[in-house]
């Protein structure tokens, strides 16, 4: 993985020192809250319902075991012993004191982590495929390009005060695990007819109160032109994006208003002006960054693993875990292990200090000291030998991390909701807990099959409800929490926008409604047909009748 050079290190160290001074001035009263708020936000520090919240970036979801150990330490020393992994592959600490945040950032800087640009109207943490560099279905590892984008966008003077926040996602695989079509700019690594590597460039995607799926702006952009081209896109947006209304300020609104073709035309025109301005880095620099992402030297192993076979026969949960929580690695004899942070009855995305320490130890022993965070709020150990799976699962299971539900109904994306978030209208976590209790039977979950449930506690859509096969949206109706159900969304390569089925339910009714939707699916599905395919074939009406007519 990428290692800071002196420039990176100095940049982060200087920012920590600067923020320490700013916090001291705020505490002394030399800065007003009005003056200080944008400063703390640009350092990832929010004020939420109960306390401050510090959002720390995990660039493109890749981190080392040492970094995970440091996160565990921060949670233990400065917080309340846990952290929350988010859909932007970041981690949030929910209880830091303002006066201690400079110390936290200093400790994070020691392991090459920071909270810069995890908030504010700037380019946020670039997200990517959690299996990047380790999956069999990949054209190229997208992380070197994500790192280029990170360096280019960090403190970019022209793009530090955009009309609104700006999110990139990039994938190198045909199977989109990074929801690239739901981003302000989405990049998909492609090869052209000549076999050259480049990108399909999409723009104007986003969730929130106006969900839009990104449009393709350029079918193929040569690899060498990445930075100058996205610079041109950002310049068009920065100049023409609305600043009079924050709800109309994202690039998706601009592109909807002017049309994707016109946005592409203006981007190309702007690109002609800037493409020779030395924005793109020399090939040697690209090669230098790529070298950090050289695949680990893995000895090809037999795909026969007797211990794995034996434990699978005697332990149904382990067998289910191997089936659901591992996926093919590019090297035979290895897999990537997804550690579910969705224990039934637990809080989606949360991990305790002890759990983080365990994952770090397992990474050191079994996954080349590498860990990934997925936008689906799980952790990944890449490059794991098949023969090591029994030992890994045993350790994970003892720590409450052995849930075998990845990709199944209870592997929900869930925002913090009204339990923590100052913007939320309704709680999300208790609904998730009730759902996991209702669907606690692993055999039943296996029978239902792949199903993505995504839940947000308000229209801002941090829980990606628009992209859920089944989405749940919490709303406030005269002080009461109600939950709407949406069907038919997808965050994958076949991206689609979920539609609201009808009136909302209370906290009990929404779980019943979800169960009825699942029952309709089980009754209507063709042999081997997954939920989304069934929904697309039969439409919403039959689901609507099932959950409303019987009420």
């Amino acid at each position: 993985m990428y290692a800071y050079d002196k420039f990176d290190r100095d940049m982060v160290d200087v920012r920590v020192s600067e923020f320490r001074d700013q916090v001291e001035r705020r505490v002394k009263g030399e800065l007003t809250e009005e003056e200080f708020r944008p400063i703390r936000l640009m350092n990832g520090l929010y004020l939420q319902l109960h306390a401050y919240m510090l959002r720390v970036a995990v660039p493109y979801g890749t981190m080392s075991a040492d970094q995970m150990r440091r996160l565990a330490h921060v949670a233990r020393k400065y917080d309340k012993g846990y952290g929350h992994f988010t859909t932007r592959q970041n981690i949030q600490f929910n209880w830091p004191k303002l006066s201690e945040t400079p110390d936290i950032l200093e400790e994070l800087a020691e392991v090459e982590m920071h909270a810069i640009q995890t908030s504010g109207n700037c380019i946020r943490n670039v997200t990517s495929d959690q299996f990047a560099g380790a999956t069999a279905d990949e054209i190229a590892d997208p992380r070197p390009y994500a790192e280029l984008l990170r360096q280019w966008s960090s403190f970019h003077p022209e793009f530090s005060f955009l009309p609104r926040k700006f999110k990139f996602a990039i994938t190198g695989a045909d199977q989109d695990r990074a929801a690239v079509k739901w981003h302000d700019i989405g990049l998909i690594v492609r090869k052209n007819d000549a076999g050259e590597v480049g990108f399909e460039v999409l723009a104007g995607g986003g969730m929130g109160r106006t969900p839009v799926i990104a449009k393709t702006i350029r079918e193929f952009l040569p690899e060498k032109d990445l930075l100058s081209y996205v610079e041109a896109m950002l310049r068009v947006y920065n100049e023409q994006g609305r600043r009079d209304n924050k709800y109309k300020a994202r690039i998706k609104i601009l592109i909807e208003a002017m049309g994707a073709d016109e946005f592409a035309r203006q981007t190309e025109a702007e690109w002609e002006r800037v493409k020779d301005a030395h924005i793109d880095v020399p090939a040697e620099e690209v090669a230098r960054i790529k070298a950090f992402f050289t695949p680990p030297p893995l000895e090809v192993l037999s795909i026969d693993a007797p211990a794995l076979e034996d434990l699978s026969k005697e332990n149904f949960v382990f067998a289910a875990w191997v089936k659901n929580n591992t996926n093919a690695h590019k090297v035979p004899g290895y897999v990537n292990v997804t550690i579910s942070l969705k224990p039934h009855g637990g809080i989606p995305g949360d991990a305790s200090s002890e759990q983080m320490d365990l994952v770090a130890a397992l990474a050191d022993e079994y996954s080349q000291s590498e860990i990934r965070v997925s936008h689906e709020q799980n952790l990944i150990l890449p490059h794991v030998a098949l023969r090591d799976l029994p030992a890994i699962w045993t350790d994970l299971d003892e720590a409450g991390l052995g849930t075998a539900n990845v990709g199944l109904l209870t592997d929900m994306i869930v925002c913090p909701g009204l339990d923590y978030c100052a913007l939320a209208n309704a709680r999300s976590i208790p609904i998730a807990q009730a759902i996991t209790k209702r669907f606690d039977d692993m055999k039943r979950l296996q029978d239902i099959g792949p199903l993505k449930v995504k839940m947000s506690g308000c229209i801002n859509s941090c829980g990606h409800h628009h992209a859920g096969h089944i989405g749940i949206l919490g709303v406030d109706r005269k002080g009461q929490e109600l939950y709407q159900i949406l069907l038919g969304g997808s965050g994958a390569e076949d991206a689609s926008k979920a539609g609201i089925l009808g009136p909302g339910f209370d906290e009990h009714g929404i779980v019943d409604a979800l169960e009825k939707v699942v029952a309709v699916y089980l009754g209507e599905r063709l042999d081997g047909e997954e939920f989304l395919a069934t929904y697309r074939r039969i439409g919403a009406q039959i689901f609507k009748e099932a959950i409303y007519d019987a009420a």
Partner: protein
Amino acid sequence: MAKKITGPQMILGNYLDDGRAVFFTRDGGWSADTSLAAYEEGEALDDLITEAGKSTANNLIVDIEVIGARVEGGSAYPAHIKHAIQAKGPTVRTDLGYQVATDWEAA
């Protein structure tokens, strides 16, 4: 147009240092214990807001908000679930927040 404020109101803010949600009290201080909270309505509310606002100038409190109050037995409690959660702590982590040290069941 701003929503018209009706009924008894209380003043919610956050301590500058730890962000803790606290209420302006009847004796002019701030406390997480809502039973100590001052509440007013009508013209008296304006005086309460002015008095509470001095704490922002004193650099003690940030994000002052006027919220609806439910009054029972002479004590005020947040009327809206959002502020009730803010006062107590996360409903999914009852081992955390101000609910730990307070007999909220009685509230």
